């Protein structure tokens, strides 16, 4: 399915060095260092809990609201910070791309890997909250892993496509913050789709993040399983997206050095 994969393995040391570099640059000269992985979802969770719970008195779920918000933010943050990193990453490395050959997808991959590690660090707080709120997990909580996999694959698909497109049209970079913001509102991070109409639900489910976030709440906090055929359908959809954006990327890659 991905012909360049074996070739990519040869360059795994370069991938590791890029990943390490991303981390050391980001946390250099900071006081809190790695805690910065937790602050953004934590602060928004507190904000949402206060605004929706105390000010607007909206009841978002039958379980504690901080859990509801934090899980959505955890996944959303992974997606948004991956895109923020990957969209300009090729254009930023033009002086490398015009000098030496290496599989260019390593650049976006290293950013997504960094966001994955951040997500893992931030999920420690989720575990602490599950203990604090005395949530009893069922076996269905294990669904969180295939759902996370789906999220990562989908993020790779979007990142490869947009980062390659940005080499040709810097409009992508300029539109990205606005686009990410729009996407945030289309994703049930601070709301639940339970309360919206059926037609609206269908529209929202065109966004794979809706499926991922809704279902992870369902299996983690409500103790219910994911519907297998729905998961498979979504998985196939994401694989097709990944395959198409990968071949778009490799096709465009040959022209990067000429147009960047």
């Amino acid at each position, binding site marked *: 399915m991905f012909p360049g994969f074996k070739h990519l393995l040869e*360059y795994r*040391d*370069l991938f*590791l*060095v*890029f990943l*390490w*570099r991303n981390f*050391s*640059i980001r946390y*250099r000269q900071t006081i809190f260092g790695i805690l910065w992985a937790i602050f953004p979802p934590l602060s928004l969770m507190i904000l949402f809990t206060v605004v929706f719970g105390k000010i607007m008195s909206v009841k978002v779920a039958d379980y504690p609201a901080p859990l509801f918000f934090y899980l959505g933010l955890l996944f959303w943050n992974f997606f948004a910070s991956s895109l923020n990193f990957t969209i300009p990453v090729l254009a930023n490395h033009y*002086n*490398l*791309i*015009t*000098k*030496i*050959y*290496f599989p260019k997808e390593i650049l976006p991959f290293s950013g997504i890997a960094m966001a994955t590690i951040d997500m893992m660090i931030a999920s420690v707080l989720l575990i602490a909250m599950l203990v604090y709120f005395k949530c009893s997990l069922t076996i269905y909580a294990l669904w969180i892993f295939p759902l996370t996999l789906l999220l990562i694959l989908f993020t790779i698909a979007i990142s490869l496509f947009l980062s390659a497109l940005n080499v*040709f*049209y*810097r*409009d992508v970079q300029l539109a990205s913050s606005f686009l990410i913001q729009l996407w945030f509102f289309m994703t049930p991070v601070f709301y639940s789709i339970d309360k919206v109409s059926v037609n609206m639900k269908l529209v929202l489910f065109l966004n794979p993040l809706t499926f991922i976030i809704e279902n992870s709440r369902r299996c983690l906090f409500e103790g219910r399983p994911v519907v297998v055929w729905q998961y498979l359908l979504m998985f196939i959809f994401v694989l097709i997206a990944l395959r198409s954006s990968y071949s778009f990327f490799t096709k465009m890659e*040959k022209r*990067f*050095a*000429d*147009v*960047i």
Partner: protein
Amino acid sequence: MSSENAVEFQNVWKKYSREAIFHKSLREDLSRLFKTASTRDGLSQGEFWALQDINLKIKKGETVGFYGHNGAGKTTILKLIAGVTFPTQGSLQVRGRVAPLLEIGAGFHPDLTGRENIFMNGAILGMKITEIKQKMNSIIEFSELSEFIDMPVKKFSSGMYLRLAFSIAIHSEASIFLFDEIIAVGDGAFREKCLEKISDLKRKSKTVIFVTHNLELLKSLADRIINLNKGEIV
């Protein structure tokens, strides 16, 4: 292709556009859709041939220098050999791993220390992490920067950058080395050392390809000088 050749160009043509060098926006591209007037020589408006019908063979172990004015196509040839760009027409083969000398900004991150940058630059040149660790001392020693090696490279002078870049490049296990103009910089003593090292590469029968305006230097180093003018071999 004969196995003795490290690099082989067959009727290579390379077209570039003057306009789309750095930045292209969607609006410009859409407006271009409506005016696709091509001229007789296969060039659209604003395009030019950077290389025209280049036929070239570079043997393994040979040291070749490219000479020519700015815009003669020297850098384009290096880019084609490095595999970052591809010919518009014709074909080329390259045998063996290629190590270009990475300039300031390319393989270096300003916030990382010299030592950390050795890891980054080395990995970009295709070295394994263990290999870089083994060669670390030797790289630092050659660069003569041991006092400054744990300092962020943004505090380096351009001469120091060059020393480090050169030192990393020659420690790679590549079989084809590309030097783009950069040997001309640096102080006299270090330059001597670099030239010595390049002769050393020759003795190890590595292929060395370089580009310079300096004809003296070219004559003293190269087995063969290829003169380029306006994208053609003269």
